[in-house]
């Protein structure tokens, strides 16, 4: 069965965001016939990335499902918006990195899911550099 076509865009997708600024975007889903979208979750979150265990925290979360609202049409663009926090700032370390992203999780029939992400940068902490031997 074909995966749904998920379109996720940030209104300022080329931008480095600063703490306190508003991040906004929109999404819509074109599901193949017979592949009904049951629910969509949009999150704005940060997670660590590196050689150790991963930490994650969700700053913004919104779930829209047919259980809550009848007659939803996910083909129509839906807008989300949130004011970004002061921390943690995006960080490009060697052993650990802090990434911010918008994550869209689409729940389909028979428990299938698809996930789409858009990375963005919060703040402008200079990247660390590996010390070369």
């Amino acid at each position, binding site marked *: 069965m074909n995966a749904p076509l998920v379109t996720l865009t940030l209104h300022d997708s*080329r931008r480095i965001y*600063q703490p306190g600024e508003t991040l906004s975007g929109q999404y819509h889903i074109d599901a193949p016939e017979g592949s009904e979208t049951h629910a969509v979750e949009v999150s704005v979150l940060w997670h660590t990335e*590196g050689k150790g265990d991963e930490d994650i925290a969700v700053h913004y979360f919104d779930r829209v499902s047919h259980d809550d609202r009848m007659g939803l049409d996910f083909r129509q663009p839906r807008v989300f918006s949130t004011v970004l926090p002061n921390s943690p700032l*995006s960080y490009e370390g060697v052993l650990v990195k802090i990434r911010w992203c918008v994550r869209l999780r689409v729940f389909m029939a028979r428990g299938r899911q698809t996930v789409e992400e858009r*990375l963005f940068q919060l703040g402008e902490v200079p990247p660390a550099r*590996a010390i070369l031997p």
Partner: protein
Amino acid sequence: MSAADKWRPAETLPRTNPFSTRFIQPGALPFLFPADVNASQLVARLAQQEWWGEIIGPHGSGKSTLLASLTPELCRANRRVVQITLHDGERTLRAHNAAIAGIDSQTVLIVDGYEQLWIWNRYLLRRFCRKRRSGLLVTAHSGAGLPALFETRVDRRTASAVLARLCPDGDVVNQSDLDRALAAHGQDLREALFELYDLYEQRHTK
């Protein structure tokens, strides 16, 4: 900083290190089975063994990754999976009593790192599982006295396939880097991939 300075193309956002934990941890990478076996065959074999079995193999050879690949098959076989992971020096199941308490004849209890337990506690666990008529699937570095299910090992073909999945372009880290890392870590693929993480960081920085 001027307003113009705040804009930059999305493609200049930091490049993700493909050897980060999130991409190499069990479940993120599928277990790469040899040509003559697959997950459903192993689960069928486990069923024949009354859901008891052991997966043995050295450090970093894919035991936990194999467990992650078997779990969905076990669920499809109408087994309830309860998994506990024992860490270095964890000699008892005290921290996992709540998880284990509810096991029954429909359960397969998975113990990742079984050899961490004291011998007496292994015996008690086996007796408990027999009493509850539950399955017991364990991983260990050497035979632990349960029916054999599978032996994991890392060969060059498997390691190359993992590299190709993680780093398909091979532009920053390549096969010869992997060969060197595997040789340095005695075929421990997990440690080799961590070494490639460092290498990726160094070269990417350049």
